[in-house]
């Protein structure tokens, strides 16, 4: 899952569900595992929207439509364009594991739930916040042409709808950008500053 970020140019999967909660992204029964196997979680991604109770694909769901069903690989379906308030509800990082395990590298939405947003970043999936208008334009472009390419340029912090040429800047703090570009994670950073933590503990007032 740890991979370096630079420029991602890919077609997208449009998941136009507002308030798409993490129970939808991965149902609770997949949480009872102790594995870290990306395939296990990738297979569970959006499971109950993709499959009915008998395990048959739900024809109407976007990920089962022929133009969006191809598994993600370089340049293809590496980006999800999601509805607003993406990832609300449960803090389960399994939802981010499912997204990463399926092969997604970027989720674009007009808003993310806070915990899920952090989880995505910690799983090296980039959450990109765009305006409602830009989000809608992406949905429109993809509806018109499922092959629409979106470019996410991490060093320059821009996202571009190649169908219209429209671009937006997106926010990411320079610490996290450094982590993504160099594939570094928070735990290694925190271990490297343990002296600061110990110094804090010595001065911290309990009551």
């Amino acid at each position: 899952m740890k991979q370096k970020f630079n420029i991602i140019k890919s077609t997208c999967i449009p998941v136009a569900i507002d308030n798409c909660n993490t129970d939808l992204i991965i149902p609770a029964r997949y949480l009872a595992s102790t594995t870290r196997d990306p395939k296990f979680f990738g297979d569970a991604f959006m499971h109950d929207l993709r499959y009915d109770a008998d395990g048959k694909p739900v024809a109407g769901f976007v990920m089962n439509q022929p133009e969006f069903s191809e598994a993600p690989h370089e340049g293809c379906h590496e980006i999800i364009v999601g509805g607003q308030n993406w990832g609300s509800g449960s803090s389960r990082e399994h939802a981010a594991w499912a997204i990463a395990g399926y092969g997604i590298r970027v989720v674009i939405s007009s808003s993310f739930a806070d915990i899920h947003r952090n989880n995505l970043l910690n799983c090296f999936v980039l959450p990109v916040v765009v305006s409602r208008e830009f989000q809608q334009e992406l949905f429109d472009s993809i509806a018109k042409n499922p092959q629409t390419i979106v470019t996410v340029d991490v060093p320059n912090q821009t996202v571009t709808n190649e169908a219209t040429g429209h671009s937006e800047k997106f926010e990411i703090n320079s610490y996290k950008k450094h982590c993504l570009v160099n594939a570094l994670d928070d735990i290694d950073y925190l271990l490297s500053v343990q002296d600061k933590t110990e110094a804090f503990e010595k001065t911290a007032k309990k009551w």
Partner: protein
Amino acid sequence: MGKTLFDKIWDSHVVQVIPDGPTQLYIDRLYAHEVTSPQAFDTLRDKGIKVFRPEQVVAMPDHNTPSDQQEVINDPIGRKQVETLARNCAEFGIRHFAMGTKDNGIIHVVGPEKGLSLPGMTIVCGDSHTSTHGAVGALAMGIGTSEVAEVLASQCILQSKPKTMRINIEGELQKGVVAKDIALYIMAKMTTSGATGYAVEYAGSTIRNLSMEGRLTLSNLSIEMGSRAGIIAPDETTFAYLKGREYAPKGAEWDKAVAFWRTLKSDDAVFDKEITYRAEDIKPRITYGTNPGAGIAIDETVPVLDGMSEAEKAQLTVQLNYMQFKPGQKLEGTPVDYCFLGACTNGRIEDFRAFASVVKGKKKSPNVVAWLVPGSWLVRQQIIDEGIDKILEEAGFELRLPSCSSCLAMNPDKVPAGKLAISTSNRNFVGRQGPGARTVLASPLVVAASAISGVITDPRKL
């Protein structure tokens, strides 16, 4: 200008602020449960490191534990997860409240009632309902498993500082209206993302008059409007609740602690956002849709599509199709199949007292299956000590064993597909209580009244 309560706790836990980056925040208490911790312990093993401050970590299984018997977990996957937690705690030297022991229960019920969650603390857990502990005046936040690993390894997390919001509730609650109704009312007003990016403080005369149990219910649901935390300033109610609890400070330490805790309130501070609601406007509440914000007063009807945008119409239609409800429908009187009292939202002693007050001398409807699940063994013991179990039994109810139970379908208490449950839990998401299960969220009073009549019932009318 003074500081907010949130700022006081946050600022006193800042190890450092990374330039153009997040804050390194020191964590006083990490709670761990079986679902979101195994991969975090694996991370430590991969790196060959120990738990940095094991004495500040408390773990217990709650999601997978069955509520009918706790001799054995029949599901091999769930059993393995619970056993893995026990093994990890033994290996890393962490306090573990094992399934079936008197210490066990739902983390968000056990933490406060054992005095492990105290005012002024920073508390995290790999669970979004960690916001619950904010009710004692702590800064409590849900985190992901990567962050659980970070706290195990370093006792710190990296977080951006949220904005602050104060929600004031003023006035006196009507008869039959409890903390759960306040929370569901706020969710409906705020929507499920209305507090995203904020840490919320609850204040006002209504909150001051709430019991500790009621405050825990309210803080519990903070995440359902997207808030990172839901804090309530500690006061005499808090101190009376915590005094004498197993892990609360004792003697001179207690006096010193209380003196400090009295300073934990928002001074003359300006919040990024401030909202006030009137307690008199709140009625017993139910939800009609598939997010906790999709709620109405019990005597109102499901919204109609007229006047909505196409997108809103589409969203509501999807929800109502799943719930098998119609726009404009009155839900009061709708037959229910399952009734659930429990969860970290409403699994405390006051919730069982409230439920018992409604069902006393009456009989459970033969048409409903009822699951009454205490949030902890302490709660269960208190139910028995107060004779509430007898009242429940005479009314045809059975008291079960502490567990997250039917809140999230990770143990045998699953609501079958298509069945309608009225539930004191916190989420009515699609499939939350079981694949295809339909959930109406409500207070213990509404659930009790509905369990008696077999249909969604206003407790004021029973």
